Each structure stands twice: as structure tokens, then as C-alpha cells.
């Protein structure tokens, strides 16, 4: 029963034009970023390989360094991470509000039970949001390995990569880079999924679907503004608080990624979605 319901919601989540739109925008930006890296690679690789015995090892042109998460040289990559919370919420986070307003939620909840219906909805939003965010990263990685060698990055080229020891999981970047890519992609998937689910949980609190998707996003930009203009200036807070930066490897200014901040934010998003789900199952859907 639950499996059928989840399959139904997943079908709705993956077969709607908003999922296609979010995925297309993400894949377009990932492709543009890869194209920019390719041009950069063409310009720099002969020089780097020729000079390798003097300055940099050949691994400094490794595909791992050109991957969107580790590379900060492409505006398309920067734009992708700026839009990421929106791209995660667009596929399916609006559907609960939509179905409650149309009366469809009341019908379905009466048939399968409110808890099952809500769990299936949140699970579908989680998976659709995570997929819309993670697939462009995988596409970008595949495109990068089409032109750059898949060499294991070496610490001698640390200034080329910008992945320093205080970067999250940097030990894997220089030892098990494929695992590093997997972990980073999983982190983006988890953030996007939790964000999509938390946005869906706000459904009962706002009336408009546009406001439902955009207000939480504007809150994130506000958090970045506070972090950039007030918290860092007045209190010298160095931990990156927003996903625009902590989902990436390269540090911005003197900020760094703290695993504790990420864990806390993920826990808050998950707990919020769960708490609202528990409260909402007692609500009258009619």
C-alpha cells in the first residue's frame, strides 16, 4: 500500500514539467561550466605539463579539479550553486499546497490515511529535489573526464586546486578522489532533498505557491547577507552558514566549511519537516 502510494507520488514528481525545467536549467549550467573548464584546460595544459618538473605536477590538470564542486573559476558553476535551493524546491515542493487547494489531498488522505499520504508526499519531494540537484553535478563530472585526465590530485598542486586541509573531506580529495566526489554529491543530494521537504512543510503557512518557493529562498539570501555584512564584520564568524558556499570545496575569503554547521542545519531542516508532518496529520484536510 505504502509502496504503491510512494510510486504514485514519485511518478507525479518525475513526470511533471517543473521537474524537467529544474533539471534542464541545472544541466545547462553544468554543461556551460564544463565548456568553460575545457577552454581553460586547452589553454593551460600544455604549459602545465611542460613545466611540471619545475612547478606543478601533471595532476594539477586533473578532472577532479575541474569538477563544478571543486572548481570556482566558472560563473555558470557559481550561478548553479546560487540557484540550487530554488532548483531543488521547484520540482515537487509546491504539490502539497496545490493538492490541498484543489481538494485532491482530502480525497486521497481519506482513502490511504493522512500519515501515509504526507510521508509519501515528503519522500517524493525529497527524492525529486535531490535528483534535480545531483544529476547536473554527475553530468558535469562526466563532461570533465571527457577532456581532462582522471589523475589523482597531489598535495603539491594544492594552490591550483584550492582544496586546503580545513576543507571538508579534503583528505579524500587527495587520496580517494572518486569517494570524495561521491560524498560531495551525496551531500548536495541530501541538502536539496531536505530543503525540498522543508519547503513542502511550509505549505500550510503560506497561501501562494510562488511565495512558498521563493520566500524560503530569499531567507537563505538574507542569511548570506547577514553572514557577509554583519556576522563576519562584527563577530568574525568564519563558518559558512549558507549552502551557496558550504556545498562547494573552495573557501570564500577567510570562511571555511564546518561539518558541525552543516550537520546542525540538516538536522534543523529534517526536524522541521518531521514536526510539521506530525502536526499536520491531526489536521482536518477538508
Amino acid at each position, binding site marked *: 500500500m505504502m509502496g504503491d502510494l510512494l510510486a504514485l507520488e514519485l511518478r507525479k514528481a518525475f513526470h511533471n514539467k*517543473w521537474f524537467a525545467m529544474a533539471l534542464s536549467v541545472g544541466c545547462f549550467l553544468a554543461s556551460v561550466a564544463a565548456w568553460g573548464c575545457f577552454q581553460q584546460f586547452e589553454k593551460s595544459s600544455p604549459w602545465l605539463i611542460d613545466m611540471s618538473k619545475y612547478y606543478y605536477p601533471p595532476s594539477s590538470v586533473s578532472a577532479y579539479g575541474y569538477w563544478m564542486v571543486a572548481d*570556482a573559476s566558472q560563473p555558470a558553476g*557559481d550561478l548553479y550553486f546560487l*540557484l540550487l535551493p530554488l532548483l531543488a524546491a521547484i520540482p515537487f515542493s509546491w504539490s502539497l499546497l496545490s493538492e490541498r487547494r484543489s481538494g485532491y489531498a482530502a480525497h486521497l488522505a481519506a482513502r490511504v490515511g493522512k500519515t501515509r499520504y504526507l510521508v509519501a508526499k515528503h519522500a517524493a519531494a525529497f527524492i525529486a529535489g535531490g535528483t534535480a540537484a545531483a544529476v547536473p553535478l554527475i553530468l558535469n563530472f562526466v563532461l570533465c573526464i571527457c577532456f581532462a585526465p582522471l589523475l589523482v590530485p597531489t598535495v603539491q598542486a594544492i594552490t591550483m586546486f*584550492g582544496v586546503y586541509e580545513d576543507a571538508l573531506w579534503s583528505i579524500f580529495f587527495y587520496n580517494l578522489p572518486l569517494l570524495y566526489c561521491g560524498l560531495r554529491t551525496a551531500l548536495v543530494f541530501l541538502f536539496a532533498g531536505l530543503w525540498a521537504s522543508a519547503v513542502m512543510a511550509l505549505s500550510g503557512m503560506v497561501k501562494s505557491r510562488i*511565495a512558498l518557493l521563493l520566500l524560503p529562498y530569499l531567507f537563505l539570501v538574507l542569511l548570506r547577507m547577514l553572514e557577509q555584512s554583519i556576522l563576519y*564584520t562584527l563577530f568574525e564568524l568564519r563558518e559558512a552558514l549558507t549552502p551557496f558556499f558550504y556545498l562547494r570545496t573552495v573557501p570564500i*575569503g577567510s570562511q571555511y566549511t564546518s561539518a558541525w554547521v552543516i550537520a546542525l542545519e540538516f538536522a534543523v531542516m529534517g526536524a522541521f519537516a518531521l514536526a510539521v508532518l506530525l502536526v499536520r496529520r491531526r489536521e482536518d484536510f477538508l
Partner: protein
Amino acid sequence: MSLYRILAFDLRNGVARHWRRYAAIAAFFCLSVLALFAARKAYLDVYPSSVGPFTLGDCVVGAFSGMKEYVFDPRNPFDFPALWLLTFLLAAYLTLHYPYRDLLGVGRHLVVAAQSRVGWWYAKCLWVLASVGLFYAVCGAVLCLALLLDGGAFTLDVSPRTPGVLAFGHAVLGQPGGIWPLLVLLPLATVALCLLQLFLSLVIKPLPSYLCTVSLLFLSSYFKTPFLLGNYLMAARSEVFITGGMGFAAGAVLAGALIIVSVVAGRAWVQQMDIIEKESIL
């Protein structure tokens, strides 16, 4: 039903009923002023007693400072100017949803009652103008209040140290005409941005049009080019402060051209679109 009656309806339903949004804008500008004071405190820590109270000109420049030109350096990755970006994302959000929602509801009947689609469209364009005007009025009120509390002077002159406080780079002060070109260009370019978004929201729906706005503002902050409208919305890139900065004439021409294109193209689109079959999602 005349254009004025539709406009009056829009002002009642699209502005007066949304007073909470303007209250939120006021709260945001309070944070913006706080950021300016934080920047002054950081500057004073390095150069003690070199900065006095702000003037009104300082506050305006601080609220719309943006960022100096970004030059790529692998050791200095791009960091988008969140305060500036949020300021214009809020202005764009204010004018995003109402026209489309109106067209799905009462606006449809208004079009029939007025027997003029063009009148409905012009009323929406004027509504955008009024909304942006009110946005700047709220901003001005908050900045004046902050100035009263700070004990600054109500003058549009910019203090010599302000570009340093706001990290403008190689700033030049004392351009003839002061910051007036910036004061004219800011609302003009904001209206152009919002009208372009209004037109796109009818063609590709509100949410994708908002994605276009975010992208346009982001690209404007990344690339200093006269072809990206956002560059004219930054004090840090204005010719008022920077040699070779964004000129008033070029900004006015670009904003004017965008306004004309958006209004004319929107009019043509509204005349041929199917208002009965419009979908209601996003």
C-alpha cells in the same frame, strides 16, 4: 471601465492589501543600515576617528553599493554581493505575482468589463511603476530615520571616507552633479528590471521569469559590462565614484530601451494570448 479605474483597483489590491510586504521591506532596509554601520565600525577599528556620522548620501550609497568590478583570481573566488542582490530580488518579488494572479481571477472579468486588454496591460505597467516608487519611498523613509538616530546631516553629499568604508577600490569623489545621476538611474533601472520580469512572467510564467531575474542580477555582479542592467544599479560601479564606471547616459538609454521593449512586446502578447486557458500553477 477606464484605465484609471483598473489602475485604482490594482493599487487597492496589489499595493494597499500587501502592506505587510512593504513592512518587511522596511525591516530589510533596517538590516541594510545595520550592515552599513557594521562596515563603519570595522573601518574605524583600522583607522580610528577617521569617519564621522553618515550623511543621507552616504546611506543611499551604502544601501545600493553592490561590489567593485570582479577580476578573476583562483585565490579569490567570486562572492556575490548578498545585500545588493537581496535588495533587488525583493523589489522583483514585490512585482512578480500580482499581475499573473489577477489574470487568473478578477482581472479576467476586468478585461471583459473594460473591453480592453491593452488597458489592463497599461494598468499593470503603471502598477509596477507605483510599486517600485513605493519601494524606494520606504527605503528613503528608513534611511532618514536611521540618519536621525545617527545624528547625521540631511545632505546628498557623500563623505570622502565613504567609498573606503564600502570598499569601492579606486574611488574618485567630487564628480560634478554629486550622486544625482545615481539617484535617477536607480529607480529607472529597477522599473526596467521589473517590467521586463512582468513581460516574461506572462510569456514563461512567474517562477521561470524570477529565475531569469536572479540570473541577470548575478551575471551583472560577475561581469562589468554596459549591456547588463544590474551594473547600473551599483554605486560601486557608477561613474560617480569610479573612473571608467557605468555612465548615466548609457544606463538611461538601456533602461529606457528595456522599458519600451517590455511595454510594447507585452502589449502585443496580451492582445493575442488566451486568457481563458491560462494555467494556475506557479
